[in-house]
C-alpha cells in the first residue's frame, strides 16, 4: 500500500538517511527500532513531508510521487490520507481536547461541524477521555495529552498512522495506558508505522520489525526473526544493550 524507495536526507553535511526503503501493507504494524541518531524519526517525518527528502520515491496505492519534488498539493493530499502522532504530543494549545480532534476534520477535510464532533467524541471515548472533552492541553497530564494525540489521529480515519516515539516523553507509569490503546488499534487492523524503544511492544504487536542504524535499514522481518534471532551483529549488539537481561520470549 505504502512503499518508500531510496530515501536520502541530510542536514547540512550530516547524512541522516542514506537510501532507506520501507514497505507497508494494509493492516501491517511496522515497528522501527534502533539507536538514537539512526534516522528513524527523520524517516517518519519525511513520509509525512514534515521534512523534505533530498531524494526518494513514494508509491501510495500505486500512485508514484517524487519525494523531493512533491508539490504543496501533493503533500497536503498525502497528509490527509495519513495521521501523525508526535513524541511531545504537539496538541494545539489554544484548542480543547475536542477541538484538537475536530480541527483536522472540519478545517482540513471539510466535514460538517456536527458530524465532526460526533466522530471526535467517539474517538476520545475510545482512548478513555470522554470526560475531558473541554479540557485544554495545559490541564491534561502527559499521558492524557498523548491519548488526545492518538484520538486526533484515528478520528480522520487515515490509511496509515505514523507514531514517532509516542511514549518517550511519558512518565513510566503512564506508558502502559498509551501502549494499551495502540495494541487495541493494532488488533482492529489499523495500519501503523511506529518508531519506538518499547521492544516488548514491538515483539507483541508488530507484524514487521525494522532495525535501523546510521541512516540505513540494517535488517527487517517478523519480530521472531529480527528480535529473537537477529542475523546482523549490529542488531544483536543493540538488543543486548537495550535488553540487558536478554530474556526475550517471542
Amino acid at each position, binding site marked *: 500500500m505504502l512503499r518508500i524507495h531510496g530515501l536520502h536526507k541530510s542536514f547540512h553535511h550530516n547524512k541522516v538517511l542514506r537510501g532507506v526503503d520501507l514497505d507497508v501493507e494494509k493492516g501491517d504494524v511496522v515497528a522501527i527500532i534502533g539507536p538514537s541518531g539512526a534516522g528513524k524519526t527523520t524517516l517518519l517525518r519525511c513520509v509525512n513531508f*514534515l521534512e523534505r527528502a533530498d531524494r526518494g520515491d513514494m508509491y501510495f496505492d500505486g500512485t508514484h510521487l517524487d519525494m523531493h519534488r512533491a508539490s504543496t498539493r501533493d*503533500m497536503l493530499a498525502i497528509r490527509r490520507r495519513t495521521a501523525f502522532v508526535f513524541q511531545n504530543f*504537539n496538541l494545539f494549545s*489554544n484548542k480543547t481536547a475536542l477541538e484538537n480532534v475536530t480541527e*483536522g476534520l472540519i*478545517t482540513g477535510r471539510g466535514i460538517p461541524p456536527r458530524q465532526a464532533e460526533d466522530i471526535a467524541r467517539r474517538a476520545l471515548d475510545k482512548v478513555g477521555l470522554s470526560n475531558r472533552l473541554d479540557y*485544554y492541553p495545559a*490541564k491534561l*497530564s502527559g499521558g492524557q495529552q498523548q491519548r488526545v494525540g492518538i484520538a486526533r489521529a484515528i478520528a480522520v480515519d487515515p490509511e496509515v498512522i505514523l507514531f514517532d516515539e509516542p511514549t518517550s516523553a511519558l512518565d513510566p507509569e503512564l506508558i502502559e495506558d498509551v501502549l494499551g490503546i495502540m495494541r487495541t488499534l493494532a488488533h482492529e487492523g489499523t495500519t501503523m508505522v511506529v518508531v519506538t524503544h518499547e521492544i516488548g511492544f514491538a515483539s507483541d504487536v508488530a507484524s514487521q520489525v525494522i532495525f535501523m542504524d546510521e541512516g540505513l535499514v540494517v535488517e527487517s522481518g517478523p519480530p521472531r526473526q529480527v528480535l529473537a534471532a537477529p542475523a546482523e551483529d549490529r542488531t544483536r549488539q543493540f538488543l543486548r544493550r537495550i535488553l540487558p537481561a536478554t530474556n526475550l520470549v517471542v
Partner: protein
Amino acid sequence: MGLDLEYLYRTFLLALGGLPVTLGICVATLSLSLPLGFLLALVGMYRVRVLGALASLYVSFARGTPIVLQILVVYSLLPSLANAIAVNAGWNIDVFALNPAWYAIIVFTFNTTAVLAEIMRSALLTVDKGQLEAALASGLSVWQAYRRIIVPQALLVALPNLCNATINLIKGTSLAFLMAVRDVTAIAKIEAARAYDYVESYLAIFVIYLIVCGITQMLFSTVERRLGIYRAPAVSF
C-alpha cells in the same frame, strides 16, 4: 497658586470634543498597521531576500527616528507630492483642502506598522514549531495552520506588547497638532494660548489621556484574560 477649577473643567469638556479625532486616527492607524505589520513580520521571518533587506531598513528607520521628525518630514513632503500626482493625473481635487487627519493617519501608520512588525515577529517566534507540524499533519494547509493555530497563539503572546504599542500610539497622536489636526491636545493648546491658562489646559488633557489609556489597558487585559483561558496553569490532574 490656586487652580482655576472651573476653567479646568470647561477646557476638559472642550478638549473632549477632540476625542473622536484622536480615537479615529488611532483606530484607522491600527486597522491599517495590524495587517501590514503582520505581512512585514512574515517577510522578516522567512528572509525573503531583497524584500527582507528593504523591510528591515524601513523598520530600522521608522523605529530609530523620532516620531516628531517623521511627522514634520511627511507633512512637508506629502501635500505637495500628492498635489503633483493629482495635477499630473488630471484629477480635479484640491489636495490642500484635504482633512489633515489623513496625513496623521499616514504618518502614524508608517510608524506603528514598523513597531507592530517587530512585536509580531517576536511573537510568532515564540510559537513552538511542533504546532505547525501538528497542524500540517492533521491535514491543514499552511494558510489554515497559520490562521487557526499559529496566529491565535502568537496574538495572545503579543497582547501585552500590542497594548503598549496602542498606548504609545494614543500618546503619539498628541503631536498631530503639528499637522493642524484638531485633536485633544490641539484644542487644549489653542485654549491655553487664548486664555494664557497653560497649567489648567494641560492638566485637563492630562486627565483625558489618563482615562483613555486606562480604559485601553483594561480592555486589553480583559481580552487577554478571555483569550488566555487555555493557558491556565495545570492545577492538578
